[in-house]
C-alpha cells in the first residue's frame, strides 16, 4: 500500500461550495506540503505544515495537520473556477532526508 494516500481521487464541486481534500500518511510526518498543479504545468507551492495541530491559511485555502502528524486536510471555502486543478500532498519523514514522497493527487473540477 501507498505511504501517502489522498482522497478523494477526484472531486466535482459547484462554484461557491466548500470542499475538503484529505492526505493520510502511514508514518509520522516531519513536514507535510500542499501543492496545486494545472495540467501540463509545474507545481505551485501552497503551504507547508510541520507541527501537530498546526493550521495555515492562504486566501480561501486552509490546511491543517492533525496532532499525531499523520493526517492533513486542505479546505477550500467558497470555491471559484481558479481553484480547479490537481492538488498534491507531499510528505517529508525526517530531518536529513530531503526527499518528498507524494500522494497520487486529487483532481478538482469546479462547475459554474
Amino acid at each position, binding site marked *: 500500500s501507498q505511504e501517502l494516500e489522498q482522497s478523494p481521487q477526484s472531486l466535482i464541486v459547484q462554484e461557491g461550495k466548500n470542499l475538503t481534500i484529505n492526505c493520510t500518511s502511514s508514518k509520522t510526518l516531519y513536514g507535510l506540503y500542499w501543492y496545486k498543479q494545472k495540467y501540463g504545468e509545474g507545481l505551485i507551492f501552497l503551504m507547508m505544515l510541520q507541527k501537530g495541530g498546526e493550521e495555515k491559511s492562504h486566501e480561501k485555502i486552509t490546511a491543517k495537520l492533525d496532532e499525531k502528524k499523520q493526517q492533513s486536510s486542505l479546505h477550500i471555502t467558497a470555491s471559484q473556477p481558479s481553484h480547479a486543478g490537481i492538488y498534491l500532498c507531499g510528505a517529508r519523514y525526517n530531518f536529513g532526508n*530531503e526527499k518528498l514522497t507524494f500522494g497520487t493527487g486529487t483532481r478538482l473540477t469546479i462547475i459554474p
Partner: protein
Amino acid sequence: SQTIHQWPATLVQPVGSPLSLECTVEGTSNPNLYWYRQAAGRGLQLLFYSVGIGQISSEVPQNLSASRPQDRQFILSSKKLLLSDSGFYLCAWSVRVSGRGDRPYEQYFGPGTRLTVT
C-alpha cells in the same frame, strides 16, 4: 526573489536517442536540487537529488543520470532513451540547511519538461 527555469518545455525524441534536460535556479546560493518524474497514472516520483556540486543521489535505478556542474545548474541525461522514459520532468529546489535545522524547508518546482519518446 528566486526563480527556477527548465528547458526545453517540450521534447519529442526517438527511442535510442540521447537526452539532456537542464534546470537552473536564480536568486539563491547552495540550494538542494531535485529531479522528479510525473508519469501518467504513476504520480510524482523523485529520481535524483543533489546537495552540492558533483554530489548526486539516485533514488530509482533507471536509464537516466544526473549531474550538477555548477551550484545552480542541474542536468538530467540519458545515453539511450526508452519508451518508458516518457513523462513530465520537474526540477525543484530547496534551501540547504547545514547542521541540525529546526524545521523542514519549502521545496519549489520549475515549469517542467514534457518528454515524449516515440
